[in-house]
């Protein structure tokens, strides 16, 4: 076999999950920014910036799950059962925030606060438990043979919980920079000020996780700090600092799209850093992507579809964003 199907699939899943983090990241972030913006009409605007696209954003999460099941059934079954409670709570969060998009506009004045709360708490719950699941995953999953051998509360540990809070910060920065791009006037100004503070918090989170993981996992330290890896991976932290500086600079000069792009850069670099730490495992610490691979007949069949169809998906996704380009104004909505 000339083609390493497992390698191609992990790249696709990496890409799918990254698309999810980036795209659902900013709309989850908007939910967590709601408490800072009490005015109802401002909240309408914030929600309307993502209303036409949030569903597509969330679909990347389903692709990640389905791709994992298709290409690495072992990883899907073990990782998902190991992370049972955080994932269930994440899904509940996504339910409450997802329906809020529709319900909030159908509710009367008396009911609307319920769906505002549902949007805020749902977004926060989904974000924190995604981070918790990520942290628990990096920390490693206890296994015996092909079975999960840990307990239901293994994820209740300092590192996963810190990752949960860290991901909330990352999503909130994506949300605030997205709103800088999509709004104007007073709301935009407030987002610029918030981003200034939140971005430093995000940098701190990235720094802490970058230190915490190698300190507690020798194999991750080995990955990053042995030669020649050190030279190969040195650009990652350097680019993080550079992105941060550019973001701060952009905030000072009538920003529009730039802060969002730099925030995307930061999140992408953080995400890549974690991928470098975990590679080539799909169930850390010991099961590699090749150990967990499904039969080549399954990987190959699904791969044909993925390679052929994903470009089309990207095309019409870009088109949908293009249709709803530009600033969203008060009372305008799309209705």
């Amino acid at each position, binding site marked *: 076999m000339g083609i390493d199907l497992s390698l191609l699939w992990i790249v696709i899943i990496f890409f799918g999950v990254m698309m999810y983090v980036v795209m659902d990241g900013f709309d989850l972030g908007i939910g967590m920014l709601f408490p800072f913006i009490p005015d109802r009409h401002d909240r309408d605007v914030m929600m*309307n910036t993502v*209303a*036409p*696209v949030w*569903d*597509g954003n*969330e*679909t990347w999460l*389903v*692709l990640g*799950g*389905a*791709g*994992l*099941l*298709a290409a690495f*059934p*072992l990883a*899907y*079954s*073990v990782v*998902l*059962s190991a992370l*049972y409670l955080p*994932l*269930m709570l994440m*899904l*509940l969060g*996504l*339910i409450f925030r*997802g*329906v809020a*998009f*529709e*319900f909030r*506009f*159908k509710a*009367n004045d008396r009911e609307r606060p319920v769906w505002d709360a549902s949007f805020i708490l749902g977004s926060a719950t989904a974000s924190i438990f995604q981070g918790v699941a990520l942290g628990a995953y990096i920390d490693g999953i206890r296994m015996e043979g092909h*079975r*999960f051998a840990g307990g*239901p509360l293994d994820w209740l540990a300092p590192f996963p919980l810190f990752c949960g809070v860290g991901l909330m910060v990352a999503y909130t920065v994506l949300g605030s920079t997205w709103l800088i791009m999509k709004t104007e006037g007073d709301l935009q100004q407030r987002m610029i000020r918030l981003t200034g503070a939140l971005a430093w918090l995000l940098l701190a989170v990235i720094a802490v996780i970058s230190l915490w993981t190698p300190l507690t996992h020798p194999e991750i330290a080995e990955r990053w700090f042995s030669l020649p890896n050190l030279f190969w991976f040195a650009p990652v932290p350097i680019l993080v600092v550079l992105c941060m500086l550019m973001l701060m600079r952009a905030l000072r000069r009538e920003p529009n799209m730039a802060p969002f792009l730099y925030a995307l850069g930061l999140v992408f670099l953080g995400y890549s850093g974690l991928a470098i730490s975990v590679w080539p495992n799909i169930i850390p610490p010991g099961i590699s992507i090749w150990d967990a691979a*499904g*039969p080549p*007949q*399954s990987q190959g*069949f*699904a791969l044909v*579809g*993925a390679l052929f*169809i*994903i470009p089309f*998906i990207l095309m*019409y*996704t870009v088109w*949908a964003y293009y*249709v*709803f380009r530009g600033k969203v104004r008060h009372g305008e*909505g*799309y*209705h």
Partner: protein
Amino acid sequence: MFGLTALDLARIQFAFTISFHIVFPAITIGLAAYLAVLEGCWLRTKRPHYRDLYHFWSKIFAVNFGMGVVSGLVMAYQFGTNWSFFSEFAGSITGPLLTYEVLTAFFLEAGFLGVMLFGWNRVGPGLHFFATVMVALGTLISATWILASNSWMQTPAGFEIIDGRVVPTDWFAVIFNPSFPYRLLHMSVAAFLATALFVGASAAWHLLRGRDNQAIRKMLSMAMWMLLIVAPIQAVIGDLHGLNTLKHQPAKIAALEGHWENHGNEGLPLLLFGWPDMQREETRFAVTVPRLGSLILTHTWDGQIQGLKEFAPEDRPNSTILFWSFRVMVGLGLLMIALGAWSLLLRRGERLYRARAFLHMALWMGPAGVIAILAGWYTTEVGRQPWVVYGLQRTADAVSPHGVPELALTLGIFVIAYFFVFGVGIAYMMRLVRKGPVLEAPRPEGGPGREHTPARPLSAVDDDEVLAPNPAARTRS
């Protein structure tokens, strides 16, 4: 908890979450197609009530779609969280099928949904119509893949088992497994029927309250044509599906007929009612029609089928549930055919819009399609037991190794959250239905362009605005 095992709880959780879920995609499939037809009619005829109906139903569609998306997300992850040994065993088949569903259907729906719901004034009419058609197409493609996957679990084909895992050998045989064509047709048509009944009931509700206009009449008329033509077709598809099941899953048929054993060579009676008792191995209090069972099941006068006693007790599905879920489905199907036929009789002289007894029946039949879908799925899924993949893996061997406490906790949260969220969501849908289609005042020719059409594809507008008295709403009485 209440003497339930972890397996029981996992099954209850799956049954609960999927029962809620299936209702939304079924209505989504039907409404998406209905909206595509309405928009097509609007573009072709330019009669305004088509456009008004489009905007009316697209609001309801949006709420329904949102609930389908979030409840569906739970399903995509539950295979791994709750049924990890099933995923490990058969993920090589169900995984690629689910991946194709995501790639060809979910993205298509999601990508064009924004334009469909929010883009009326942002893109040209042709492009908007295209977006609606893509969403409708996406819902049908989605049904195709997920039913291929489910049908494979019912009648597996095109695989071999290597090292305790399923390995696909022939994808064509996997997808077009023996029960797939029947299940796909049966479910797609069921979705159309359920939607037609919902639309028809909405119209009947308004007409019964004296609210009568061109749009409401059109709604009722279109729904009843659908019912008249499609309900009998569904009966034929159901019959063919039943014959297919008899061939591949005879225990399911025996259980849903409450048939325990054959007596000599005599033809089978049809049990109209009764109470199959799994312990006593008989159907008690049976009300029978001689020979009708043979006629329906084998299309001959004295054909026989295997009785439940021919299967080992641990391989028998629960006949008590199947017997009744099947009868609920068939009974409602017969009522649908009757309602369709009645509507035809009332077409002369437009009595359709005035006959109160008929309108009452149409109103009460509103949820019948959804109930029939649920009953049908209980029949086919409970009938697959005790297997998760028929004949290959037992449900008891598929479940994740979770303890009772965490399953009880999540089940409790799901029950509370679902009843609250989806209860309110359905209430909002009904609130929109009660408002009825808003007729827009005709615009003078050459007036303001499309940009200024006060279109409201999504009623993300304030309630007060829609509730305001609209003089155009009663243009016809």
